[in-house]
């Protein structure tokens, strides 16, 4: 089992300080990398070059963009709901940091480790839609309002298949982790503990992707929708709503939304890695390397999908969630439960 920072540093303040610094650093670097990577992936798909000017193959382009965003004037529109408008970027951004700190990225060290990790991740994921709604509602802009309303409806709908599909993994962890070796002893694995989920896959030598392919697909699609990625990016559908909920945000306020979007993607990919791809499990390379390789492979898949498909319409999005994903995930859950009971 990974040791947490609280185990290593007796003083909780130091542990929290180090944890926040580490998470912020990783998320910032990830965002800088992901924006560059997204532009490069889109360029490779579209037979272009992407950013080439700043740094080697444009690697420093996002840094330059970030400096530009920091230097820009913050335009505050008239007639806004001030508290909501100003709080929204923070409400969107803060849960991301919290959720990222829950990820067990290696078998030896983790930032935190709780027995309800999975629940907390979904909770923090749900927070983002509140922030988006606050921003859209407070902006005094009809496009932003439309984007905000779409976002809430979408997030609520897609949380159901997201949770249902991960529940089948939880069931499997419970069934397969009856004799879960931890710190020299044997315990019953906890299906809600992210480290246990990975640990069971590592010890049994089988990734849940192989046992639960349907759940993985549903989970991945739901993650795309939860993180507002194309083809489910209707809250900020640029061809319909200009920029959706963040139409009226400029400068670093917009930067925070952007930061949160890419971090959400990263977290979604990490959760999918933990649940289905065996987390840190893999030969030769050290655990964190495997973890981040798998995560970035999923991030790459998200980008690949974004640059391939058109966008769904709002009602089709709902039909897809309630008509296809929810029934399928319930069916998958029932079959899993049945099989778990039988074997």
């Amino acid at each position, binding site marked *: 089992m990974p040791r947490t920072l609280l185990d290593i540093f007796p003083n909780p303040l130091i542990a929290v300080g180090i944890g926040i610094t580490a998470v912020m650093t990783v998320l910032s670097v990830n965002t800088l990398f992901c924006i560059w990577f997204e532009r490069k992936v*889109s360029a490779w*798909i*579209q*037979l*272009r070059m992407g950013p080439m000017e700043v740094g080697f193959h444009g690697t420093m382009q996002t840094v330059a963009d970030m400096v530009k965003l920091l230097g820009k004037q913050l335009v505050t529109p008239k007639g806004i709901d001030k508290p909501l408008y100003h709080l929204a970027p923070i409400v969107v951004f803060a849960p991301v940091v919290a959720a990222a700190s829950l990820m067990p990225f290696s078998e030896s060290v983790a930032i935190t480790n709780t027995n309800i990790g999975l629940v907390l991740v979904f909770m923090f994921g749900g927070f983002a839609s509140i922030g988006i709604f606050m921003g859209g509602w407070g902006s005094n802009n*009809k*496009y932003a309002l*439309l984007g905000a*309303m*779409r976002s809430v409806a979408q997030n609520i709908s897609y949380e159901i298949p997201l949770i249902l599909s991960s529940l089948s993994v939880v069931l499997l962890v419970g069934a397969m982790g009856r004799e879960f070796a931890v710190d020299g002893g044997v315990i019953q694995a906890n299906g809600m503990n992210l480290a246990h989920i990975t640990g069971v896959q590592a010890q049994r030598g089988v990734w849940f992707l192989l046992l639960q392919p349907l759940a993985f697909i549903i989970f991945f699609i739901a993650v795309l929708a939860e993180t507002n990625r*194309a*083809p489910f*990016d*209707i809250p900020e*559908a*640029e*061809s*319909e*709503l*200009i920029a959706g909920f963040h139409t009226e945000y400029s400068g670093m306020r917009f930067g925070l939304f952007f930061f949160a979007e890419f971090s959400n993607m990263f977290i979604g990919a990490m959760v999918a890695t933990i649940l289905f791809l065996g987390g840190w499990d893999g030969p030769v390379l050290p655990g964190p390397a495997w973890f981040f390789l798998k995560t970035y492979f999923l991030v790459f898949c998200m980008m690949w999908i974004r*640059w*391939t*498909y*058109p*966008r*769904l*319409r*709002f*009602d*089709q999005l709902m039909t897809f969630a309630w008509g296809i994903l929810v029934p399928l995930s319930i069916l998958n859950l029932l079959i899993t439960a049945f099989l778990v009971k039988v074997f």
Partner: protein
Amino acid sequence: MNSGVLDTLQRGVEEETYYLNMGPQHPSMHGVLRLLLHMRGEMVLECEPIIGYAHRAHEKMAENRSYIQFLPNTSRIDYLSGMIYNIAFCQAIEKMAGIDVPERAEVIRVIVCELNRIQSHLLWFGTFLLDIGGITPFLYCFDDREEILGILDRVSGSRLTYSYGRFGGVTADIDDVFISQTRSFLDRLRGRLPMYEGLVTKNVIFRDRCKGVGVITVDQARAYGVTGPVLRASGVAYDVRKAEPYGVYDRYDFEIPTRTSGDCLARYEVRVAEMEQSCRIIEQALDALPEGAIEPAKMVKKVKSAAGEYYFAVESARGHFGMYIVSDGTDVASRIKLRTPSFSVMSAAPDVLKGTMIADVIAIVGSVDVVLPEIDR
């Protein structure tokens, strides 16, 4: 969306509606179209297109300058089918003044016009996909379109506003390089069509977004004077190239692709089929390219015509484009009225957009392929 849903919406306990200004500055409004939408949530109750943001007074300019001076303007009315408009104006003047055109020039005109039509349809294809959220097909189309622009640039010297036609001919002759480039482009385009089909036509998201969306019935289309691919998607096989052949179009064997459903998907399919037909026309024209002059021996600078009214229509990439010229016998037109296809299509918009969702508004406006400078002129 059917009208039943609309009634339910309108029967709501209290009216909670709002107005949404879509355009003139909007990322996916074509040009500077402004749609004033009366909305209820995501649904459009009423739609009022407001035009005139790109008005450049082309028709008025025609009354202030000689016919040949108006020639560069024609490419700028609809910048996507600049070649077709340019040559249409030349053909109108030739009809008016009775100027003979060498046969080779006529055939060259057909070739460049059809290349222009493919180019326009490719651009439409890309922007339509962009409107409904697919960004990559846009760049693939532009890659293909770039080839056409290169070919037309080589012969006319310009990529968009060609000014290639002259009264009685064209400015430059085509050479063997042009012919081989065009042939290889046709092969390339035909090779790319299956790719587009897999990436777009068969894509379930694309089909869901387009099927049954923005249906223009035959009656509606006729009532508003809608022409071109939009009319053909509704099921009327009307094409000026067949109905009243101009130039040498009557020599070539091609079909008018039609669909009956009249929705966005039908319009998409009609345009893709038209690209194939244009390829066929170009091939036939290249196979039977006569030798000879491309211009009259002496450049026509002053147009001599009898006073009277003349009308000449061509099939542009967007439909029936007509030029109505009132001549008083001098070198300056007393009035030129341009009948542009986009205007008719846009006037059908309030009817079609009623009761759709905001995402459909974008898809429908994208699918009918309006060019705003052509509406405003």
